[in-house]
């Protein structure tokens, strides 16, 4: 029982770490590049886009998709790891 509690606790901590990192990127690409630093980034260009404008209307959305799939991947990996530990115990 105690072992199970410890296991759940460390699983939850690993989960929180993954989520916190992803949230940093989430904030940076939308509120950071798309809003707060958007005007500054506008001095750089990618093709016909000003960079800040591109982040606000395109880039942030692509990064959101990547973030969710990175999350899916990391959590599945974590789940597999803990399923193995459970088998051993």
């Amino acid at each position, binding site marked *: 029982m105690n072992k199970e509690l410890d296991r*759940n606790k460390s*699983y*939850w901590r690993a*989960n929180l770490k993954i*989520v916190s990192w*992803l*949230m940093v990127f*989430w904030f940076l690409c*939308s*509120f950071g590049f*798309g*809003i*707060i630093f*958007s*005007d500054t980034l*506008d001095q750089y260009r*990618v*093709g*016909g*886009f*000003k960079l800040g*404008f*591109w982040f*606000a*209307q*395109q880039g*942030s*959305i*692509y990064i*959101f*998709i990547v*973030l*969710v*799939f990175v*999350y*899916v991947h990391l*959590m*599945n990996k*974590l*789940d597999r790891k*803990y*399923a193995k530990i*459970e088998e051993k115990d």
Partner: protein
Amino acid sequence: MEVQELTYLFVGLSFAVYIGIAIWSRAESTNDFYVAGKGVHPVANGMATAADWMSAASFLSMAGLIAFLGKDGSVYLMGWTGGYVLLALFLAPYLRKFGKFTVPDFIGERYYSSFARKVAVLCLIFISFTYIAGQMRGVGIVFSRFLEVDINTGVVIGMGIVFFYAVLGGMKGITYTQVAQYCVLIFAYLVPAIFISILMTGNPVPQLGFGSTLVDSPVYLLDKLDQVTVDLGFDEYTQNSKSVIDIFCITAALMFGTAGLPHVIVRFFTVPTVADARKSAGYALIFIALLYTTAPAVSAFARMNLIDSIQDKEYSSAPSWFKNWEEIGLIAWKDKNLDGAIRYSSGDAVKGRPVYDTERGPSGERIVLNSPNFDNENEVYIDRDIIVLANPEIAELPGWVIALVAAGGLAAALSTAAGLLLVISSSISHDLLKKTYMPKITERQELFFARVSAAVAIAIAGLFGIYPPAFVAQVVAFAFGLAAATFFPVLFMGIFSKRLNKEGAIAGMLVGLIFTATYIIFFKFLYVDLNTSENWLMSISPEGIGFIGMILNFVVAVLVSSATKPPPQEVLDMVEMIRKPE
């Protein structure tokens, strides 16, 4: 074939498919009716979520809104997609693990309180009906413009279709029709966008096309658009005109609101496992992003084409779409300088929404009775909702593309309406009747009540369509602001904090609700004249205030919880169960 015949054909065919699916996927149990038997494949659920989420507002109004707002319109793009990251990381997997039927169900159990459950039901019903009213307006616009039937007849037909598959099939019927509706709506959105992108920039990918040069010159489309908008006295297209703090708060309110919308959350109850719920959120975001990354391209193309095709043209030689939309009252022209030519620039052409005389003016235009605004030169009133529907005509695309867009608009409106009706009916039959007032009813009776409440909700939604409340546009801020200020914090803390108790959650929800609702009602309904940035709290508009309401909810919930006694052991066990690996 004529455009109208083609439209009848496409709309008729798509409706036949929806009805066919409804008959095939009838609900046999409450489990089927509420959560489609928890057997939906994650990709199918992704599509259904996308159709559920993308409403008449996303399909019909958003690109038009961005076309006129320029960079300020980014709040919708980031806000309505970024919320899915929150949903995937913080809510969907855990609420699926909880394994019940509705969002108030989670709140009621986690906070061991039937009062909390009732507050949640109240917020849910308010948010969902607000949203449905908007869908019905979308259905009405499509029917009256393209099928030339009376708006009321259109609404009744739409309601009839939804009635059929929602009452018969519940969540199961809705899910599979939404999959079909997603296919219809995304095809209808992309085809004209691709056509127009090729015509204007030679690039078949609209997402790249609007960052390319124009076909007939070496100038980038967005640079040209910046120059033209500035020349006509508008704000520069790729520059923000709202303050950074306001843009920040609106985006945040839309994001947290999206993550807190019950009809979206409940979609993740329908997949078989927790891992599927996570994956499904990713697929949903891809399917949504397909439209959301295309929309700003459509906006830029439409703004450019619109200016090109009417600026300084004689009214007598104006394009036919201009006159068609004028006929149904969504475009108006007031020849202020009496030269017979259309002059389009910044500012409102006339005061208020146009009111037409029965007589015709000297150039053959519908005479507008409103008094003109002489502080600017603009002579044109254009309702922003028509941009997506008019865009194929403005770009002179073939008739079948125009017909396709009409079918897509209906798919978007109906799929969202059905999803909303379902959460309303299940919160009534499950949370109010079964869990609160009539706990003794059998499953068969509960299913019967679920069907009855779905039917009643459809009838009320139909009334909203026929007698549209004047406040539809204003209440959109309400739906998202309230979802952010009430649901998101209690759902999030219900999972991520073990300390948050009944008292804290109820106090938090009520503070969020009252603060946000008061602010919006004050500026949007009571003192509309005062609704300018000088009077706003920290220059945050009513659209963004939900974010502040959410922070207040968090603060109050934590403070009240720490002063009262912690939740009972069985609730702590439940939270532990939700967090555990599967």
